[in-house]
């Protein structure tokens, strides 16, 4: 893919798939980014890139904040019906996204949330809630309960214990959750297609449009470049967070 993306179309037509390009060119990358046609518009996939960023950042931050808060509340504050709620949440994790698509559109439509940035972020947050809550609840439930009791006796309230004590203890989990959520949202196709609307189509949808709709000759080099561009962000997340990941695990292994 990388090799093909660096070739010119003339060279690709020779059919030597594994040969090195005789002349390296970034023309295809430039085209994919700026001028390739994704449907009617021919502005490359850069718009999708920024759309995806705009979707991923709030979706990840909000989902993690809510998931951690949920998990903390479920693990420590044992409100009445907490286990029932947790059970329902878990059940939610097993329902396929596609089943809920239509009801969700009907639900969000009258609220003018379909086809907006807020709508797509909301949908991502909703669908990530079971798994986010699960991993944080399990992380907090594994902490010694006496820690929580000590903080309660020390006079800590719900939020103070969460922010000052529990959240710093959950840093490894925060990193894991951020990786999961960010890559998950970035790679999402169907929710973005349905809920994002024309203005906020994520990169994956634009990539599909670019690859699957062609007028005239199929520009393999541009397709390849666009695909690589789209997968760069998850790749970067893994590479950059790996260090944190290991550090988080090492920190968690220390006895408190």
């Amino acid at each position: 893919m990388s090799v093909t993306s660096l070739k010119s179309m003339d060279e690709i037509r020779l059919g030597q798939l594994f040969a090195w390009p005789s002349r390296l060119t970034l023309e295809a990358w430039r085209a994919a980014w700026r001028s390739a046609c994704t449907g009617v518009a021919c502005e490359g996939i850069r718009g999708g890139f920024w759309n995806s960023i705009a979707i991923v950042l709030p979706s990840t931050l909000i989902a993690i904040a809510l998931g951690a808060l949920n998990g903390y509340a479920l693990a420590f504050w044992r409100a009445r019906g907490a286990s029932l709620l947790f059970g329902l949440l878990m059940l939610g994790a097993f329902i396929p996204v596609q089943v809920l698509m239509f009801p969700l559109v009907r639900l969000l439509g009258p609220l003018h949330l379909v086809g907006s940035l807020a709508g797509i972020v909301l949908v991502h947050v909703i669908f990530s809630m079971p798994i986010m809550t699960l991993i944080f609840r399990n992380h907090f439930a594994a902490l010694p309960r006496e820690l929580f009791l000590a903080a309660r006796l020390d006079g800590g309230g719900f939020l103070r214990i969460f922010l000052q004590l529990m959240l710093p203890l959950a840093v490894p989990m925060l990193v894991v959750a951020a990786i999961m959520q960010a890559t998950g949202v970035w790679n999402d196709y169907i929710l973005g297609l349905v809920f994002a609307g024309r203005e906020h189509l994520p990169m994956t949808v634009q990539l599909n449009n670019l690859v699957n709709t062609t007028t005239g000759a199929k520009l393999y080099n541009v397709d390849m470049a666009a695909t690589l561009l789209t997968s760069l962000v998850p790749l970067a997340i893994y590479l950059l967070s790996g260090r944190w990941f290991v550090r988080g695990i090492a920190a968690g292994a220390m006895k408190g």
Partner: protein
Amino acid sequence: MAAVSIRDLRVHLGGQPVIDGLDLEVASGEFLVLLGPSGCGKSTLLHALAGLIDVAGGSVAFDGVDQTWASPRARNIGMVFQSYALYPTMTVAGNLSFGLRARGTARAEIAARVQRAASLLQLEPLLARKPAQLSGGQRQRVAIGRALVRDAGVYLLDEPLSNLDANLRAALRRELKLLHQRLGATMIYVTHDQIEALTLATRIAVLHQGRVQQLGTPGDVYARPANRFVAGFMGAPPMNFLEGRLAVSGGTPRFVAAGFELELRDYEFRAAAPVDGEPVVLGVRPEQLRIGAPGSWTSQVTLIEPMGNHQVVWFDCAGSGWSALSDSDAGPRVGARIALAVSSSPVSLFRADNGTRR
């Protein structure tokens, strides 16, 4: 400093009554030790006093003010947990000050109080460290310090020394006693270790099956156990028991068993006067037995346990395994016949049917 008053307290865990109608009065400045085997409800009682679990009935009052349904925050208690429960991500200073920060104490006041607690417990060089960088004894001192900075009315200590090795435990036990002498604070201390109970307590409450079996000074609980459970639980090696009957003839009651007889000259019977032929259980502490004195009976040594400064001599007494103490160098050997006598200090008698003190 506060007095604690517990009336008819009942606590259920998972539908099971763990504490069942418990009454306890703790005077201000007292060091009360709740002693009992694991699962007797002593930690549960402590958590109930702290407000960390809801009670099913009864009341808890500090200095006459009812606290039964007060939040843990409002009760003004300091607690030391068995696992220390130090906040792993905070420094020692952060651990000590968390409670004060949570209560919105002024910054200068916090610094002064942390400084005072740190110097009291020799924690000054450790203030910038994280709990993971501390030894077991240091963590324990931080946990105590975290309770102390609060200037609480009552301090609750839940088996604070049980995770330490033997030497450190003894050293910290002495530190705790010194601390209590210096502060004069009300302390309620839970342990299953009778040595800790005997050395630290001003009074001991022996707990079993959710009830107070006996409440008294360490000397009283040790010398005059209220029932067979207390008698068997306190003391190492344990008290020697022998089933038999009372014989009352000529004014002096005697304890009689097969091949064994003991005059009960100064025994203070509780409640009713002794009845001839009444079935009882005799309890004699190992140190109340003298070996080699012109004895009332002889027996054969079955086992010797050297303890360094003394040794425990095990032998058979009318079918029960008994023990006595002897000097290390001058003691008998396994298989030797020894003469035994009960020394003058009072023995214990328990009713055969329900085990209460006779």
